[in-house]
């Protein structure tokens, strides 16, 4: 068998994920602090549940929202909407229990709830 006809994995035609120059838009977001944790609300119009990728890595919360292409007929004659995907990174406070982070998207607003770990929640201590 001719080994040259076998495309090598590292010479694949598809550019490497790391090589691709990705352009992102940072979505405007509000952060709220409550007794039980934090709530992030980010504006991601055009992003569905399937287009969301939320990861926690090395103490950082990485939010990635891929836009669904706008389904329209005709050619674009005027543009203000940036076609890029959304990305935002937050550093997590050590008090956050990263295993209990939940997220939800509704009409283009992503809500991420970050609960504090049980041990750091304020607790009343009875005086003996």
């Amino acid at each position: 068998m001719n080994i040259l006809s076998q495309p090598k994995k590292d010479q694949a035609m598809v550019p490497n994920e790391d090589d691709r120059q990705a352009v992102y838009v940072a979505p405007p977001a509000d952060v709220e602090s409550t007794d039980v944790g934090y709530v992030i609300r980010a504006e991601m119009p055009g992003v569905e549940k399937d287009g969301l990728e939320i990861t926690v890595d090395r103490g950082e919360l990485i939010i990635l929202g891929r836009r669904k292409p706008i389904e329209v007929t005709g050619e674009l004659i005027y543009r203000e909407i940036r076609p890029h995907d959304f990305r935002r990174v937050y550093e997590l406070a050590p008090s956050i229990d990263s295993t209990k982070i939940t997220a939800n998207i509704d009409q283009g607003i992503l809500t991420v709830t970050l609960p504090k770990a049980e041990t750091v929640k304020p607790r009343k201590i009875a005086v003996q």
Partner: protein
Amino acid sequence: MHIVRYRHSPQSDLFAALDRLTNMRAEIDRVFESTVGSFSRSPAPLSRWNPAVNVYQDKDQFTVVVELPGLKKEEIEISLHDDTLTISGERKREESSGLEFLTERLYGNFQRSLTLPTAVDTEKVKASYKDGLLQVVLPKAEEAKPKQIEVALK
């Protein structure tokens, strides 16, 4: 004179500067009595929420897409006056139980108006709202559609 509410964010200086630039452009436009495109953003202060708009066209219709994340259908108002489409409403803050830690999103009233290049059939305008995107489809009026004329060759 107008009073701009103080926003404690480093962006506010930028917005103020942009506001001054917009005012300056309005001033220049007035002097030269020119308007730069009928779709240009309204001279409203930039520190106010100004939703982004895309416009598409084919031979039968215009489609206007507006980014309006976090609204309810009944909070969006769409009106058509002659060939000017106006989209307006108010965005309220979500009910919250905590302290604001960081505020970047803009709330309050918004309004965008755009003049369409040709007449549209006002009876057949349709709108939908999904994933925070408003889509308004405006079929062109019969008389505004391009017509094919056959020319006989002799």
